[in-house]
């Protein structure tokens, strides 16, 4: 359900509670009519009022959106129902009625309690929403090799990493492969050192013959093994040496996993790879994406060094027909998926999801060392900026300033003293109002309002 919609479960429960209140009212009236000496006006009035209250509360539930519904349900409605149950018990007790609530009511509460506890359990577990990957990763203008390899890393691991949980990007590689030295728990070969192996492997005897011989077509992928110039044109290497090089082996492994199966990791006596052809659905990497992954694989074992990378950058790639979408602020699997932060996430996840660390340095948020925007030391900075004569906004305190900055980044553009000019206006997205629930915004504002430079800096 979207945040602006009703919560289907709690809306349903509120209706059921209203029906239950009506049932209780009817039950009390019935007992009053069956027995003499019961003050039917008093009890009828009490339970009638409760039934009306429950009805009104149910109506009220439908005027709320789901976050508020949840709060109202647990803070008010549930307690009203429990109070009504208590009063109902008092009614039975005080009038010495032995045949009390019908089994259907007990069963209803039993079922509801068990089911809601199960729903509660699922909400207690880590929450991770999986958005569909973009159809094609975007490339922003000219790239450096570092950025290109980073693009490959994001395709493999995704932009968002959560501690303690395997992070998986569009390529889905970490589902099976491991990447750290000594980690052999994966279902498929460890890719540490794959750059070096890519040069050696093509010289092995086994590569020449198994499972298909060099020069033969591998049926599942349609790729001619060991022939870089017979790779489908849209993925074929443009330029470079004539022989089959390490880059070609890596590309072939991605496009034709069964062209060579590492011993112990294949099916049918290591003649079939369980790996999908990654240029076909469901992964369907484009030429630029395949090259980015190859660039990452070639460079990952030597951080900061890109000498071993042989794939061309997109802007230098003669074979790149410009299929990649050019779009600002792109990266990995985050661009096209609808981003929404509910406020139930922890602050680190929220900030990562919104992408703040890409531009801002935020104390207390690991990895938030962006330089494109001002450092967020708002506990100190915000009061000063409000006093700035150039400030034309409406905020009167830190929290209001932070909220205004998030929702209306152009209301006040911070001056970059180091560069001697303002930070670029219009760089920060203006869509955060659509990506944050009220609760999330408050949580974010509370956090950022407290940010200050680390002690000693």
């Amino acid at each position, binding site marked *: *359900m979207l945040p602006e*919609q*009703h*919560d*289907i*479960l709690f809306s*349903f*429960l509120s209706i*059921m509670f209203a029906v239950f209140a009506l049932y209780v009212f009817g039950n009390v009236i019935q007992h009053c009519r069956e027995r003499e000496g019961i003050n039917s006006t008093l009890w009828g009035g009490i339970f009638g009022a409760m039934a009306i209250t429950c009805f009104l509360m149910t109506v009220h539930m439908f005027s709320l959106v789901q976050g508020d519904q949840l709060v109202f349900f647990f803070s008010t409605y549930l307690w009203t129902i429990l109070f009504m149950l208590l009063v109902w018990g008092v009614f039975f007790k005080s009038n010495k009625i032995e045949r009390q609530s*019908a*089994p*259907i009511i007990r*069963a209803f509460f*039993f*079922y*509801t309690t*068990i*089911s*809601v506890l*199960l*729903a*509660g*359990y*699922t*909400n207690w*577990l*880590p*929450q*991770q*929403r*999986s*958005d*569909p*990957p973009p159809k094609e990763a975007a490339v922003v203008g000219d790239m450096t090799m570092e950025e290109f390899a980073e693009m490959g890393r994001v395709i493999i691991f995704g932009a968002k990493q*959560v*501690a*303690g*949980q*395997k992070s*998986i990007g569009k390529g*889905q590689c970490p*589902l*099976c492969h491991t990447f750290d030295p000594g980690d*052999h*728990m994966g*279902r498929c070969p460890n890719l540490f050192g794959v750059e070096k192996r890519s040069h050696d492997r093509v010289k092995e005897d086994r590569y020449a013959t198994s499972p298909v011989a060099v020069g033969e077509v591998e*049926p*599942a992928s349609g790729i001619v093994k060991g022939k870089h110039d017979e790779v489908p044109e849209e993925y074929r290497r443009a330029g470079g040496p004539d022989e089959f090089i390490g880059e070609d082996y890596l590309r072939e492994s991605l496009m034709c996993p069964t062209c060579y199966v590492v011993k*112990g990791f294949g099916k049918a006596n290591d003649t*079939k790879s*369980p*790996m*999908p052809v990654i240029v*076909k*659905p*469901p992964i369907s990497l484009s030429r630029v994406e395949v090259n980015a992954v190859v660039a990452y694989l070639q460079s990952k074992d030597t951080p900061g060094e890109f000498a071993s990378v042989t794939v061309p950058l997109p802007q230098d790639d003669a074979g790149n027909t410009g299929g990649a979408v050019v779009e600002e602020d792109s990266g990995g699997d985050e661009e096209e*998926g*609808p981003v929404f932060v509910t406020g*139930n996430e922890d602050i*680190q996840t929220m900030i990562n999801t919104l992408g703040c660390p890409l531009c801002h340095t935020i104390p207390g948020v690991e990895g938030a060392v962006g330089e494109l925007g001002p450092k967020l030391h708002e506990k100190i900075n915000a009061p000063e900026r409000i006093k700035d004569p150039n400030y034309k906004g409406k905020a009167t305190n830190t929290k209001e300033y932070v909220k205004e900055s998030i929702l209306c980044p152009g209301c006040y553009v911070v001056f970059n003293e180091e560069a001697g000019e303002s930070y670029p206006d219009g760089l920060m997205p203006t869509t955060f109002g659509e990506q944050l629930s009220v609760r999330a915004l408050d949580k974010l504002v509370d956090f950022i309002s407290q940010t200050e430079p680390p002690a000693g800096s």
Partner: protein
Amino acid sequence: MLGKNTRSIGTLSLGLVLALAIYLIPGMTGIADAKEAFAEQVFAEEAFAKEVQAEEAVEGEGEPEIEWSQDVFYKDWEGNPLKGPVSGYAAPELGPEDYNTYEFAPSRIILWVANQQHLYFGSFVLAVPIFCMIIEFIGIRTRDDDPVMADKYDRLARDLMKVSLTAYSWTAILGGILLFTFITLFPGFFKYMAGIFRPVMHVYALMFLAESGVLYVYYYGWDKMMDDKFLKWIHCSLSVLLNLIGTVLMYLANSWATFMQAPGGIDSEGRFLGNIWHVIHSTLWNPVGVHRILGNIVFGGGIVGAYAAYHYLTAKNEEEKAHYDWVCYVAMFIAIFGLIPLPFAGYWLMKEVYAFRQQMGITLMGGIMAWLFIIQAVMIGLLFFGANSYLHNGMARVKGSHRYMKYCKYMVLLLICCFTMWMTPHTIVMTPAELKEMGGAQHPVVGHFGVMSAKNTAVNLMITCTVLCFLLYQRANKKITVPWATVGNCWITAIFIGAAANIIFLGVYGYFLPANQRVGLSVPQVTSTLTTLFAGTAINISMFKDSESYGDIQWGTQSKVGTYAIFLLAISFTWLMGLMGYIRSSVRLFWHVTEVVRDNSVDAYTLTIGEAGKMLTFNALFVWVQFVVVFWVGSLTAKKIPAKAPEGVPVPAQQQQ
């Protein structure tokens, strides 16, 4: 089990389980090969015929040449993709105009509710005829020996059918709602599916007519076919026919879902390749079918059990209480009978999923869906607690059970330990600070219980414990008199101790093996568990020969805890069924048809576990509200015949004698 002749029924149960196992095992081992071989043969013949026709057409009238394309799933003997004539349009690239929405809820959620409610009711109405068939058959078979019991069985079958009749109409209405939801909210996708499955949909509708016809004759002809022995057999045969048609219906509907998850019979562009059987008989069709049949039995047993438990609580007199207590027992027996082989059908399904696309299997078991399997583990734990609680409480009403009641607390303790181990997660999401504090993604001590070695050990011990509990329940009022009683008891003890020791040893041994070898240990562990089930039950039943009774089972004295254990089982079945359905369906991630038709709607994301959990709870509660309404409607036509046991007949059945 269900009547006086325990041995024959016990043997029947054993036979049915074995028959099921025999049915499953070849499928689990050779289904893929067989399918490929068959597909290849059929396709080769068809392809040849079409090729000839095409050539003739080209030579003769100059008609356009038939385009051939590769199947996305089926392969020939050499592992090459099968080729087929393109006979349909390519899958559409769906855009915003292909999705309609309401403001109050996302389309996908609305479709989920419509689908799940229809499936719940469909499951119930398919399960009840299976119960009726078995119960009516037992009634006919026992008529000569025990006419009173035979009447009881017959009445029970009929009562169930009456409830099912109302539910049947309800199911059809929900099916209509589902269809309209599909057409109105996902018109683009539905158009594609209708293009592929056009003939299947018509056959489905016709089968529905046949099902309705047989159902009405079966129910409304009950009285007329009651007295004549031959006609009664005809009547019972109608229930077989009813189940056959119902199964065909279910399999046809399954083909749409299995095609969406693991398509076959089309090329990579989604074009139909001319063989409708390939489209229907995609790789998951058989395992999903078997899994659903068993699931329906379990779910149906849960509903009937809860229905009987409710009537037990509201019973006005002792006879009624005794009757519904007995019905509870029958329903629970059937449910657990279906539950035991269910995991094996699940294994088969997962095996086929892995065979289709390994990354799909890994997404399920180790990717974004992995937490849902932890929830499944919790649900299974709940089921075991519920089942054991019911058996423990049920044992209390059996005279002579005091000999075994003292073991119950140890069994509960074992279940708690195993359950805790079973639901220990492998890794949990943490902040970097928490990660650092714990020294890694896994806890240094508790983390050891999060791996499969520990979990397989835990769940096998839980099943073994439940089997033991069941055996004790069986013999609770028996005084064993066979001369080989001591030997028999020693064998049973040895089997259980040996199985437990083997399960634990293999579990510990698994820690010292690499992952790919460790996986293989689950087979001997499961074998140990099944040995206790089959060998233990067989020896146990054999020892009942000429046994003396400590006394009758006091039907109608079930404790409230035992009754609520049935409610717990029923709601757990419902929730679990929804959960597993959600997992199976959502593993397609952002595809309507895996790798062929991409879901380009705004709802293409995978829900968080919490959102999914709330939907599951809503669906489970909503369907039970409907069941209450349906049962109430069914009861409006009930003739109030007090359930009275004739004098001199134990009340109502002495299933243990």
